[in-house]
């Protein structure tokens, strides 16, 4: 009879978070580390993001997304991580994980499961954009995958959104010889790095239309244009286009987490976690873009390592669930990570993003009336990460009231 050894840790998702957590666990001497990935290849989203800018924070050099994905996979497998592709985690219950794939359906019972299932861009339906149903509406993720598969893209595109990923879409389209007739954002400005608007205008020839929204898509078989509304005046006009790229507007891929009954954070829409990735269920951890939609691959990768270190240190004992004090946010703060603050698990930083543009200058964290920390905002734009030094968590009173994060002038 074949002896079945249960894995010690099962990690769901072979993106930067999952692969980095797995590699770190092996470095710390943990045996039986299995990563399951539902796609036929590991690497996560960076596999399709064929431009520079990956690896700076974690691997200390800049490379393209696909090369970065390959490096993470190589590193993990070289350290003895068992990466299984085309395997989907379909159910988590009572410490067991159900895995489905071409080899059949298997139930494993690891000590701990780490969810690292990432985030996706919301499609047209979720954004409730009315109009005809002609083909040519896609997310950036789809655009990138089409480009990689050498499938035709449009000639005249409207890009919805003006964050990093939107400029990444614009670059790709320009590179493929298409023109970007407009980048449209409901915000008063773009949300990418300083000067992105100038680069966009001069080099990408992509006019930025701020405080504007898409109110209709026209074209029954193929997209023929969009109707844009200038939000302040309600003036509408039609712009001809054959492609509409819906960029950004991320949502965690949270189905498995929700179906497992994990307590969710209504703001991030991912599971509620502390800085060690602990959730409301002791045997399940969660990290990466599943718990903060979205941060860079490097941030996710470093967080994966952090989770692994905390986990390895505590593996001798029984794992415990997140018990820290709740961190709530006040508008225009959209969400903050970690949603539970625990003085014994101090994060490198508290991450947060805004939902609308603000002129406020500071972020303030309070427990009751006590100010835990104040930081100057690096910018006041939504869709881009902001940070507060994690040391604030150390001063949280674990028996005290909930903590709030808000912005002030």
């Amino acid at each position: 009879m074949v002896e079945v050894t249960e894995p010690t840790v099962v990690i769901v998702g072979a993106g930067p978070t999952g692969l980095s957590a797995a590699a770190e666990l092996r470095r710390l001497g943990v045996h039986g580390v299995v990563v399951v990935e539902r796609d036929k290849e590991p690497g996560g989203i960076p596999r399709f993001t064929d431009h520079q800018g990956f690896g700076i924070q974690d691997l200390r050099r800049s490379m393209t997304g696909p090369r970065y994905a390959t490096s993470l996979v190589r590193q993990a497998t070289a350290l003895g991580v068992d990466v299984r592709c085309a395997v989907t985690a379909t159910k988590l219950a009572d410490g067991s994980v159900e895995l489905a794939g071409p080899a059949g359906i298997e139930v494993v019972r690891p000590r701990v499961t780490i969810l690292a299932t990432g985030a996706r861009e919301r499609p047209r339906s979720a954004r409730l954009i009315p109009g005809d149903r002609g083909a040519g509406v896609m997310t950036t993720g789809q655009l990138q995958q089409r480009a990689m598969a050498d499938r035709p893209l449009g000639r005249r595109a409207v890009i919805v959104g003006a964050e990093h990923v939107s400029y990444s879409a614009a670059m790709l389209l320009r590179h493929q010889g298409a023109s970007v007739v407009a980048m449209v954002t409901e915000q008063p400005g773009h949300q990418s790095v300083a000067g992105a608007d100038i680069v966009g205008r001069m080099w990408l020839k992509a006019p930025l239309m701020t405080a504007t929204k898409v109110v209709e898509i026209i074209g029954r078989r193929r997209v023929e244009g969009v109707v844009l509304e200038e939000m302040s005046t309600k003036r509408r006009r039609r712009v001809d286009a054959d492609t509409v790229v819906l960029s950004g507007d991320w949502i965690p891929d949270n189905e498995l987490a929700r179906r497992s009954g994990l307590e969710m954070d209504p703001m991030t829409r991912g599971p509620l976690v502390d800085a060690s990735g602990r959730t409301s269920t002791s045997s399940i951890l969660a990290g990466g873009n599943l718990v903060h939609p979205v941060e860079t691959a490097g941030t996710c990768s470093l967080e994966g390592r952090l989770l692994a270190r905390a986990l390895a240190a505590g593996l001798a004992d029984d794992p415990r669930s997140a018990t820290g004090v709740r961190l709530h946010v006040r508008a225009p703060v959209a969400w903050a990570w970690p949603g539970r603050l625990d003085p014994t698990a101090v994060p490198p930083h508290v991450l947060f993003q805004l939902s609308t543009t603000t002129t406020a200058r500071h972020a303030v964290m309070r427990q009751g009336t006590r100010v835990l920390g104040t930081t100057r905002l690096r910018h006041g734009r939504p869709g881009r990460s902001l940070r507060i030094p994690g040391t604030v968590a150390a001063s949280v009173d674990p028996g005290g009231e909930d903590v709030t994060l808000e912005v002030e002038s």
Partner: protein
Amino acid sequence: MRPAITEHDVAVIGAGVVGCAIARRLERAGLDVVLLDARGDVGDGTSKANTAILHTGFDTVPGSLESTLVTTGYKLLAEHAASAGIAVEPCGALLVAWDEEQDAALGDIRDKAIANGYLDAAIIDADEVVRREPHLGPGSRRGLEVPGESIIDPWSVSLSFAIEALRGGATIALGREVRGVEAVGDVHQLLLDDGATLRARWTINVGGLRSDEIHRMFGHHSFTVTPRRGQLLVFDKLARPLLNEILLPVPTERTKGVLVSPTVFGNVLLGPTAEDLDDIGDTASTEDGIAALLDAGRRVLPALLSEEVTAIYAGLRAATEHRDFQIESHPSERYVCVGGIRSTGLTASMAIAEHVAGLLAVAGESTEHGRELDATIVMPPLGETQRRPARDAALIERNPAYGRIVCHCEQVSAGEVFDALRSELPPSDLDGLRRRTRACNGRCQGFYCSTEILALADAAGLDLDPLGWSR
């Protein structure tokens, strides 16, 4: 020179669910049938965009043809679905009253159900309503339960009829539009868009939104179709636990209201609107329509609104100036019109087919059930409560392709996609593949999988990419 002329016993114009049902029924009677549709796939008009409810007929107009055909069709389709493995969930329905006027109307609706021969409808009190549906918004009152109302996979129904007709020997001509008709002696000669002609002794007009136009080609003017648009929102599967049955509005003089219903695919539907249009091609959604649906949904099931919308679509009902189905037989012309099949045609489809067979019999055709198929057809199990291939260990062991999930949101395997691509009635576009497999129908709408699925189609030699072949 004109292309060759083919001759058939019966030409069925329109391969919606009703046309497919008729073609299947007449084929079984031993007639040589050709089923024509202007679109590239069967069931690609109104039949693909409805609320997918298998109606008991409790609220039809008593004594109408529709009442009879819906009541009979309900039983026939339930039997067919069970034997063909098409997903049906007998979840029942609850009409919920939200104000005094609606509350007062419940008794009349129950009486109407009885007049329609449906005896199981019962009024339940306000507390019981909330107990059964704990997620209802505040302000609900009494309700009327209709336990027989069911939900069904609407796409597999049209497909199963068409495939059975095909196996029986029928010809299915897709992408062929009927442009005109001329009588040549005893037969009709149909003129098609590509210049070809086709001869048939009998013609059945099942043209849906264009049934009036075809009717006029035959020289009849008894009705005009006014498309009545119904916009619908489909919510994520994570919303499914919010309701246990179909939540129907109580119709009053002023408004018909919208329903919230589970689907056999495990989603939740909210809709439809009712807007009279003059363009039979306008299946767009609108700002006002979406806003109205969200308002209605917020009242009935507030928690629904925090779930993701995974699809927005609109269907056009073939409404006419008459209240009933427009089914007419003109035996001397060997012409039958099946028009104005507005809002219950999915349920009534098989009964309509029996009715049409009867009309032909009256005119002297032999339409007794003749041939039975060699093997009963089995449709792929697309229902959430059925055993889907990716969850079927024994099947995966025989063929690992059923374990290779390619559409993650809907858990569709490569094996199922291959089956659809290689079937006797393959899809003509990505939407056709969605209807056959559910692939790309989920919450990500192709963010993860569309490119891989298109590549599978490429490999099978089918160009399903709406934006063109891969380079």
